[in-house]
């Protein structure tokens, strides 16, 4: 089974009860080729999401969609921005420990040249991962942002 350690950067604007929030995430995930079961992308942090597809791009797209659906669920369940922010931060920082070990091993395989992905950018495995949740007080075009291109960690 081939596995790829992925770095991703998602940018979202989410509306909740009386607020609009900007969420910028720099996360980690493990993309795996599971043969007949297709490609899977498993979250490391945030650890509580997974996505699948018949190609790597489909798996990444499904993962992205599931991530966004969790943000929407959190927004629906939050009474105000402070609760939303705290819950999103907890969601992000809950690392999937077994998958994190696999991610580290996959980074080593990339560094040893056993795995490569010329369809991905390359990023630093030790680049800091974080989430930033900010309340948008005055909505204007400058708060819009595109996702970062996914990268393979090395």
């Amino acid at each position: 089974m081939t596995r790829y350690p992925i770095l991703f950067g998602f940018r979202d604007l989410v509306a909740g009860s009386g607020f609009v929030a900007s969420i910028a995430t720099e996360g980690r995930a493990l993309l795996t080729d599971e043969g007949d079961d297709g490609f899977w992308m498993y979250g490391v942090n945030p650890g509580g999401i997974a996505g699948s597809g018949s190609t790597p791009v489909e798996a990444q797209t499904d993962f992205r969609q599931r991530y966004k659906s969790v943000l929407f669920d959190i927004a629906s369940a939050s009474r105000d921005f402070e609760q939303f922010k705290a819950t999103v931060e907890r969601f992000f920082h809950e690392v999937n420990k077994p998958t994190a070990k696999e991610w580290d091993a996959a980074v080593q395989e990339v560094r040893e040249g056993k795995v490569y992905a010329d369809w991905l950018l390359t990023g630093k495995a030790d680049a800091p991962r974080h989430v930033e949740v900010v309340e948008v007080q005055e909505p204007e075009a400058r708060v819009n942002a595109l996702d970062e291109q996914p990268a393979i960690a090395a």
Partner: protein
Amino acid sequence: MTTSGRIPLKQVWKMLERCAPGHEVVVREHNFLVTYNGLSYPSLPRGEHGKRQNPEIEKGHIRHLVRQLELDPDCAKRHLPQLR
């Protein structure tokens, strides 16, 4: 994606009863939120609209849930042989 890679949700609930005693499930708009021992899995799919009585869940989600909640993998496989 093959259908052999799917597990009926009712079997997942039975596995959780055995392998994660005291776990809690919250139904949210898009996903089930499953919590156990201070850990959470917020993205267990609810299934497609109109098929939510006992939807079949891709086993990759269940495999990841087992890891995220740090359940005993042998217990999970005993109750969900599809994970073997």
